[in-house]
């Protein structure tokens, strides 16, 4: 048996942002890549910042039906002495397929235990059955190559105070520490996308890559003032320094794309973002299509519970005589996560309506004469058409319908839905649209759409 790896990256293509490339491939070949989570992880590791890649992974095998060992390690990793080392942990249940695989691969006895597995060689560097004490475990970590990078980066910055890269890496390290501490105080765990892949949740990974999700903090314990400072003061201080020096414009903040969205619970961070968001808006005036500024603005807005979209968009002047979409498609998509008022939704409705009107859309094109309307896929032509329709739905019609409904323009949503259904005769559309209407709190619209058929086939 030979396994094929769809390889989105080549030795010559490292220049491409992995995030975009891998996502592009993942979206274009979802059926092939769904079973390729480890391959995706390998790509992610390669493209992660060098100093953010851990030399080893802690694999914890729990006895069937319990999580005692992984809970114990979770607490241990949060201990003060261990915080400098960012140890990635993966838990396995003994009876599960992945657990059995871990046992078989490492020739283990079937009992609760932990292993520190070298990332390069995939061989265990240390292992045991109970929870080790902090000092013993630190010794294992150091032997495996873990380092206190915050300490080293601070020393480096004394020697090279202008190093943007050192500031960037320090900020990322402090961010990771802040996230861990905040999770501990708040009693919750929020997964990064990398961790979703670790769990094999490819669908969750794709969802988070394509649409920014809000973290549900309703079950979290609130941070008190001391905990807030304890968790976030170092990160906030470094961020403040970077904003004050103006270096923030040249720095990449990967956490606004792949970090744990815990900042809403922190008064320190909320206040910092409130203070500095105008600087980001001023930068957007100069370069309104620059996605890095948008990423940061959206993150800051999300943390503050939304910010009116219309005034900012109205104040920005897109470059004339260009062929590119304004605002950039990815930005419009990301703005969904910060829309909070009816006005915001109306702004988004206008942006998506313009996309719907201006560009060609498979959902608006008349279906070919021989197109099946049963929804069943027949032959590769049908598969391609179904994929194109689905892509058009996800990229444009679904957000347009959602923004219509949320802005209170249900009649327009109805008209658009019928237009698309009549033109495309895509029989998957009623169910998809109905699900969307239901999610938007419109059960009556959902019921109506779910039984809709193209006008000429009624």
């Amino acid at each position, binding site marked *: 048996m030979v396994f094929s790896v769809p390889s989105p990256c*080549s030795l010559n293509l490292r220049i491409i942002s992995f995030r975009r490339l891998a996502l592009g491939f993942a979206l274009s070949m979802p059926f092939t890549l769904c079973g390729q989570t480890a391959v995706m992880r390998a790509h992610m590791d390669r493209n992660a910042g060098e100093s953010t890649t851990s030399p080893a992974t802690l694999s914890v095998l729990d006895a069937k039906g319990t999580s005692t060992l992984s809970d114990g390690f979770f607490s241990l990793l949060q201990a003060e002495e261990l915080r400098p080392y960012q140890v990635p942990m993966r838990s396995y249940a003994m009876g599960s397929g992945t657990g059995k695989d871990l046992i078989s691969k490492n020739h283990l006895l079937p009992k609760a235990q932990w292993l520190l597995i070298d990332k390069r060689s995939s061989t265990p560097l240390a292992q045991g059955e109970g929870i080790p004490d902090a000092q013993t475990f630190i010794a294992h970590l150091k032997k495996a190559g873990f380092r206190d990078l915050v300490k080293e980066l601070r020393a480096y910055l004394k020697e090279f105070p202008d190093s943007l890269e050192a500031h960037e890496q320090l900020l990322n390290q402090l961010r990771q520490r802040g996230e861990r501490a905040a999770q501990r105080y708040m009693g919750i765990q929020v997964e990064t996308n990398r961790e979703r892949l670790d769990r094999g949740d490819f669908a969750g990974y794709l969802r988070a890559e394509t649409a920014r999700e809000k973290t549900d903090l309703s079950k979290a314990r609130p941070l008190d003032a001391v905990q807030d400072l304890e968790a976030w003061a170092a990160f906030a201080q470094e961020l403040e320094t970077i904003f004050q020096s103006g270096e923030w414009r*040249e720095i*990449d903040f990967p956490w606004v794309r792949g970090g744990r969205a815990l900042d809403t619970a922190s008064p320190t961070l909320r206040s910092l973002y409130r203070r500095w968001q105008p600087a980001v808006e001023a930068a957007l005036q100069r370069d309104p*299509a620059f996605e890095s500024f948008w990423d940061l603005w959206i993150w800051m807005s999300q943390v503050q519970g939304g910010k009116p979209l219309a005034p900012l968009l109205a104040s920005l002047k897109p*470059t004339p*005589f260009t062929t*590119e979409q304004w605002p950039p498609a990815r930005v419009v998509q990301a703005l969904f996560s910060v829309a909070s008022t009816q006005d915001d939704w109306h702004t988004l409705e206008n942006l998506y309506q313009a996309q719907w009107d201006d560009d060609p859309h498979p959902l608006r094109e008349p279906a070919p004469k021989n197109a099946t309307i049963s929804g069943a896929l027949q032959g590769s032509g049908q598969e391609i058409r179904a994929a194109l329709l689905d892509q058009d739905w996800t990229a444009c019609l679904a957000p347009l319908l959602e923004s219509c409904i949320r802005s209170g323009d249900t009649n327009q949503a109805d008209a658009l839905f019928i237009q698309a259904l009549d033109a495309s005769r895509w029989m998957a559309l009623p169910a998809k649209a109905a699900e969307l209407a239901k999610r938007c709190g419109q059960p009556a619209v959902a019921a109506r759409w779910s039984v809709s058929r193209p006008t000429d086939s009624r």
Partner: protein
Amino acid sequence: MRTLKLAFASFLAINALPAQTLVTAGDNNLSLARVLRFHPEGMLLCLPSAQGQSLAQAIESALDQEPAVALQLSSQELGLGLKVGAELQRLNGWSSEKPHWALVGPDKRVHAEGSEPPTPRLIFEAYRQSPLRTRAEGLRDFLKINLDHTDALARLVLETRSLAERRTERLLGPKPPTPVPESSLSKEGTGEPKDGPNNSIQEGSTANIAQPPTVLPALALLPEEQDAKIWDDYAALYGRFITEGHWLDLAPDGSGPVSLAGQLSDSAEHSPRLIALAQKLLPIIEDHLRNRPSDEARWQIWTSLRSATGEVRPSAVLQGLRPLPGAQRWPPAAALNAFVEEAQRTGNWHEAEPILQTSYDQNLEFLHALEAASREDASQRWIATHGGVSNASNTKVEMGNYFGFGGWNGEIALLVEAKLRLGKLAEADRIFQEVYARVPKNATAEGASTLARTCGAIGLAEKWGRLAR
């Protein structure tokens, strides 16, 4: 000279270029409004006659000549049988007996038309009499009101650069191919067969290896008057783009108009004022590069300036710096192209070789990680579909070859070239054999053989060439 990586980055950034022309051939759903939508500056459209006479080539040629070239307009021929062609024909009431052309605005308004090939002067005057504004004029108007607009300035820099490059090329002729292309795959051999046909390989000796041409052909420099006329505008805008810090809005993946505009024109070496400008700006770029030496886009910009001045080695830029804590390599991977270009420029591969070697080692490691990951995925799929423990760990993994992955690509060719140029023939052979074992294709052997011949390693050239059937 650019390596494949840079070429690919430019390819990725192609949507950042100022104008875009829709491919109309065969698309019968395309409307005239959609074709024109991408050309707010207007464009020249033409229709062939029913007998197939076409003005397309004549128009393209006219647009490339003074004074029409200054307009930077696009032209497109529409098919008579297509909806969009019929729409244009109807709009003008044209018969099909003759071919036609028209200068059309974004609102479908026709500002000039004819059935004979237009002269460059005619196009220019027709455009000037119309209310249309060129892209450069539109951007300048916009920048008068929005002084600090980085995106608009970047696009104007690109517009003026493109015009100046076209004018330079018309004056000096097209740019000759660079003396040592990155993979050297298409070059004929230059060395004598001194290491003999017996495949004997001696480590460490460079005596029998032909060195690359170190004396580059003399470059034509523009006379002052022409230089000023062609490059003044671009030089002023580019200087402003750099000194005001607009170039620092570099996207993390190096895409977009800012990254492209940050690179000095490839034709700068012909312009004394651009060479002087590059010398003036280089220290600014180097300061920023030293603060962020892992930024490939900054290296690209630095390389573009360095190419014009011919001064400063990449190792000199990094002097006094230390790798960041946790960094796995130094010099950073981002500097690889700069070191390779330096080696190709000077013929000295000593500094580039270890960087290419590290890159190769890391790529190989990644290849193995992918193989392991692929096995893990296969194992998970097995568990999901069959239950129990999989036997995937012993299974052969086919890595695929979507982009020549792990095969004979630019970076590996460069490493082998470095080894050959430095006389490390046994190492070159080992690397080639590793790659060939993975991708045993004729093209791999042929490419490597040609490279070896170019470098004067005739024994290896013949040995590797024999593998090509």
